[in-house]
């Protein structure tokens, strides 16, 4: 038998058709697991396979679509079901004399959503798929066909599982809706980039749509993909007729459509739901005589997130540099404290400021960088839509980040050093990525463009050896400060130009390095950015919050015909104030304002219950929930000589918060206002904290908050967190779906006096009870306060909690009581 890889992309290959519809016709019921029929109805399965083999397909699927340990948890059950699926395929091949046909181990989605959308961990998904791959391979499958994937992340887990557990060819087909999106939001181009990065052997689309509806998606697939493309549509759209599901496209009509699809330049065709051996036979009859066209290599360079595809090339992109501890005291502290909120906020701000990609560097000698890289990547991709650039010199950290990344990231970086190439390129080869190449090698940084181009050529050659396409290399021209070598900008600019003109490559720069050691750096940086862009720079690593830089960028696009009708420029600046040089203009125009915007200052009914005109500006701003005004008022108050930050907190800030809190309890202030006031107070606190830099503030106590195991609703817990922090407590937020053991371990290790637990569902109160039981056993002195939608005083008593808090303010009051009783806050 010829290796399938030898034939893929060189000749027409025909895949089989639907499984479920045929089994239903043979009596499978809606509530039944179809794969069990491999054991209970072997003759029906043999007939299914034989039908497709006799119709002439080259590749046919085992009846294992939904087989995984979650659905077949019994001892040996999964093994039996998958093995029988493959063995019956071998038998069908013998019976029909089709020894040339390939048995595809069919793998569908797990049926659960991956974190953070659902509760299935990424590595758990890899394990679940890996198990099926091992069983199927041992039983004799010829390839792995991962199909009907509607989430890029789950598709990635399945591909890694296949690659890590067998050497068989791996084909992947995903399911788009009519708009060309996966259920989780990825576009055709994003899915293609990720799958090609994972080096699958063929990719394509199946299910959900009929061949006619699939046409525009196939066109996009063929335009984006460089590897063989598979198209397996349904037999049109389903409808119910007399209680049975029927599809509206018959064999001849299907074949006509497939002829049209084949002509678009795809290499493999077959069917999905509703298609039968008759459909496949008719399709083969029409397509097999058509001229075959192999796919062509596409030269577009694409990085992706779960939903977005960002192209590097025609229009330069902005890469945000703020997630990086270098030279940032506050960021270093955030890394040491695992302060995710701070790090995520840095990410959100850059997204709002107009960055296209975010650089992620979490390297600090005293922390566990690989673990931090994984944590930060997971959390960032849970809230951001932008692709990330993983920036580390530690290959272990790089692999952790690459593995859990949902998409095709940028990788920063490899250098011309042999050691670096050998460490980084295999990882990019395995996981995919667009690789930043630094123009330095064992001899250091060449001081001429010629020297740098030489290294660039060597890196391209190394990429060839590792099977990384040249389009996925981006050359870092290296910006070195002109304060130590006044020629250095010219060398860098020449390097950019020559990479573009002589090598046809893409370039990247950490732009602001150019001005190191000079005053008013923003001026040099912005002008250098314009020059670099003019010389062909593809990716600018900058602080997107820096207005001068963003103005230079937007102006360059407008002047270079890269901003149609100047729409981007107009949108950014039509209503923005004119720039103020020498100062730091507030995050002005261009900020694509999203959830991060502060509430607009305006009248609030909370003020109606306020003390009136005698209130200080700070108290007023807090009561009315105006974050910017609160920060401003605090700054102004502190500017008055003799004003102490702590006095300000105790005499103005806390009383204002109390006033709002009381209003909330009386029912005259509502939750959104309570939180807006809390946010205003937080903004004020931040200013006070800044002014007291160096002096540590006393915490009123440390409190664990967690949403218990099994529960994924954490909004209530997050509200409580905001309020507790406002009242001066340190909150250790353990997140949602937290196992009792984690909560107890943290309480013991951190010497915690109060634990707050949240549960939304009756079904998860059980976990709450178990957590309390374990806490009582291992740390009897710790108090437990509980809350959540289903919680009541009776319920709280029944599970042994110390307090039931009906809302966030009640939790604050209880914390006050607990820590007052303890006298001094716990340390």
């Amino acid at each position, binding site marked *: 038998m010829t290796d399938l890889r030898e034939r893929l992309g060189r000749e027409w290959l025909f895949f089989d058709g639907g499984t479920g519809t045929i089994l239903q016709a043979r009596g499978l019921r809606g509530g039944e697991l179809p794969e069990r029929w491999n054991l209970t109805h072997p003759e029906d399965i043999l007939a299914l396979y034989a039908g497709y083999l006799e119709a002439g397909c080259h590749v046919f699927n085992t009846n294992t679509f939904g087989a995984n340990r979650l659905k077949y948890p019994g001892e040996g059950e999964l093994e039996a079901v998958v093995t029988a699926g493959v063995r019956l395929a071998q038998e069908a091949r013998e019976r029909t004399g089709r020894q040339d046909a390939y048995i595809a181990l069919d793998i569908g989605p797990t049926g659960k959503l991956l974190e953070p959308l659902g509760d299935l961990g990424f590595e758990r998904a890899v394990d679940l798929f890996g198990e099926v791959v091992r069983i199927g391979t041992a039983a004799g499958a010829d390839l792995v066909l991962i199909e009907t994937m509607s989430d890029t992340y789950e598709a990635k887990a399945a591909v890694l599982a296949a690659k890590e557990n067998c050497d068989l060819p791996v084909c992947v087909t995903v399911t788009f809706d009519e708009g060309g999106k996966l259920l989780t939001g990825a576009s055709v181009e994003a899915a293609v980039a990720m799958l090609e990065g994972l080096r699958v052997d063929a990719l394509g689309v199946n299910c959900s749509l009929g061949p006619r509806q699939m046409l525009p998606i196939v066109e996009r697939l063929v335009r984006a993909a460089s590897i063989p493309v598979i198209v397996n549509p349904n037999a049109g759209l389903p409808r119910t007729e007399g209680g049975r599901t029927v599809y509206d496209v018959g064999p001849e009509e299907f074949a006509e459509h497939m002829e049209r699809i084949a002509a678009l330049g795809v290499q493999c065709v077959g069917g999905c739901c509703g298609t039968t051996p008759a459909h496949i036979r008719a399709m083969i009859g029409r397509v097999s005589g058509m001229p075959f066209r192999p796919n062509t290599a596409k030269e577009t360079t694409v990085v992706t997130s779960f*939903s977005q595809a960002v192209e590097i090339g025609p229009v330069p992109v902005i890469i945000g540099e703020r997630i990086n501890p270098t030279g940032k005291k506050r960021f270093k502290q955030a890394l040491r404290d695992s302060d995710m909120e701070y790090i995520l906020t840095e990410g959100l701000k850059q997204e709002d400021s107009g960055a296209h990609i975010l650089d992620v560097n979490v390297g600090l000698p005293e922390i566990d960088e690989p673990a931090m890289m994984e944590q930060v990547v997971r959390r960032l991709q849970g809230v951001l839509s932008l692709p990330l650039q993983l920036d580390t010199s530690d290959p272990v950290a790089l692999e952790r980040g690459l593995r859990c990344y949902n998409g095709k990231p940028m990788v920063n970086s490899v250098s011309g050093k042999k050691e670096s190439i050998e460490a980084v390129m295999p990882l990019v080869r395995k996981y995919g990525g667009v690789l930043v190449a630094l123009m330095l090698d064992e001899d250091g940084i060449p001081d001429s463009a010629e020297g740098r181009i030489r290294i660039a050529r060597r890196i391209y050659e190394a990429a060839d050896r590792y099977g990384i396409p040249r389009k996925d290399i981006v050359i870092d021209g290296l910006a070195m400060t002109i304060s130590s070598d006044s020629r250095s900008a010219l060398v860098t600019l020449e390097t950019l130009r020559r990479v573009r003109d002589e090598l046809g490559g893409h370039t990247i720069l950490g732009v602001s390095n150019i001005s190191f050691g000079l005053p008013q750096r923003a001026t040099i940086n912005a002008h250098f950015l314009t020059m670099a862009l003019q010389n062909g720079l593809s990716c600018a690593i900058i602080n997107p919050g820096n207005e001068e830089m963003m103005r230079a960028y937007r102006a360059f696009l407008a002047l270079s015909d890269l901003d149609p009708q100047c729409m981007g420029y107009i949108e950014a600046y039509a209503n923005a104030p004119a720039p103020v040089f020498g100062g730091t203009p507030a995050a002005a125009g261009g900020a694509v304002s999203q959830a991060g915007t502060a509430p607009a200052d305006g009248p609030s009914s909370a003020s109606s219950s306020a003390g009136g005109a005698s209130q200080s500006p700070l108290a007023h701003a807090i009561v009315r929930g105006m974050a910017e005004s609160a920060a401003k008022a605090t700054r102004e108050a502190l500017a008055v000589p003799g004003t102490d930050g702590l006095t300000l907190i105790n005499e103005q800030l806390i009383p204002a918060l109390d006033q709002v809190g009381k209003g909330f309890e009386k029912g005259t202030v509502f939750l959104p206002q309570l939180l807006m006031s809390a946010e205003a107070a937080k903004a004020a606190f931040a200013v006070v904290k800044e002014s007291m830099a160096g002096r540590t503030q006393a915490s009123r106590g440390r409190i664990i908050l967690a949403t218990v195991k099994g529960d994924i609703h954490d909004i209530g817990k997050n509200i409580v967190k905001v309020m507790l922090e406002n009242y001066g407590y340190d909150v250790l937020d353990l997140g949602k779906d937290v196992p009792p053991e984690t909560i107890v371990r943290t309480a013991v290790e951190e010497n915690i006096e109060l634990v707050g637990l949240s549960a939304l569902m009756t079904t998860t109160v059980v976990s709450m009870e178990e957590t309390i039981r374990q806490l009582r056993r291992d740390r009897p002195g710790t108090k437990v306060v509980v809350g959540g939608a289903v919680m009541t005083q009776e319920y709280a008593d029944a599970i042994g909690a110390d307090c039931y808090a009906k809302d966030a303010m009640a939790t604050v009051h209880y914390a006050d009581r607990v820590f007052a009783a303890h006298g001094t806050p716990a340390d």
Partner: protein
Amino acid sequence: MSAETGRAERAGGAPAAGTQTAGAGAAGTPAAVWEPLSTPRREVYRYLGYRGIVPDETVRAAAEECIAQLAREVTPRQVRRLLPLTRTVREDGAERLVIEGIPVDSLALQKNLRGCEEICLMACTLGPGPDRLIRRASVAQMSRAVILQAASAAMIEDLCDLVNARIREEAAERGLRTRPRFSPGYGDLPLELQRGISRILQMPKTIGVGLTDTLLMTPSKSVTAIVGLVRPGAAGTADGAGGADADPTCTMAGCALCGARETCAYRKEDS
């Protein structure tokens, strides 16, 4: 530059009359929804705790921004399937409902489905967008998170009403009436039924909705429900509470059935 925006595609035209998304074994059509969702402001404010009070301008403006943001990010999808409803008798003599071979023990559902020989299973979702927006706002600004939460809760209810209305219209064409929709977790209807509904409607595949180990749906702005279909005047439908849904606008199962009705902050004022 961003080649794609991650924006949800909203479907335009209505599907052909009588079209149903297929059930088990067959491909489900990840059917996009056929008309734009509305977000009743009154409901949004109610979920935020404003009972009968209109929030001040700051909150109203924030709510409008959140609703606009959600409208860009939701990907409403629905799947529904008509199924026969059968009944068996348990060992203890009690009646038991059976849906596609799945036994269902629930007095409340039995009452709701009295006289029905057919049901429509429905599931719908706003997609992963709202959860993501709420996660995002939870980092930066909790006040936005709670408003997004309330607005998306109002939106999913509106989507349920749209799907329910479609079921009712299709039933009316066949001379049938519908009962108020009933979801797992209402009254004594066990959450466990979610597994069966998920399998029958192939929810992961058709609308991208999964179940956690604790039977919560993900994305969280998703709903499953059972709608009973009954022939007017059918035996056993004469009693008041269980009577056929004479008022076509009355599709809500309502708070009357909920065990938490006495304490719930979100209880409708008129129930």
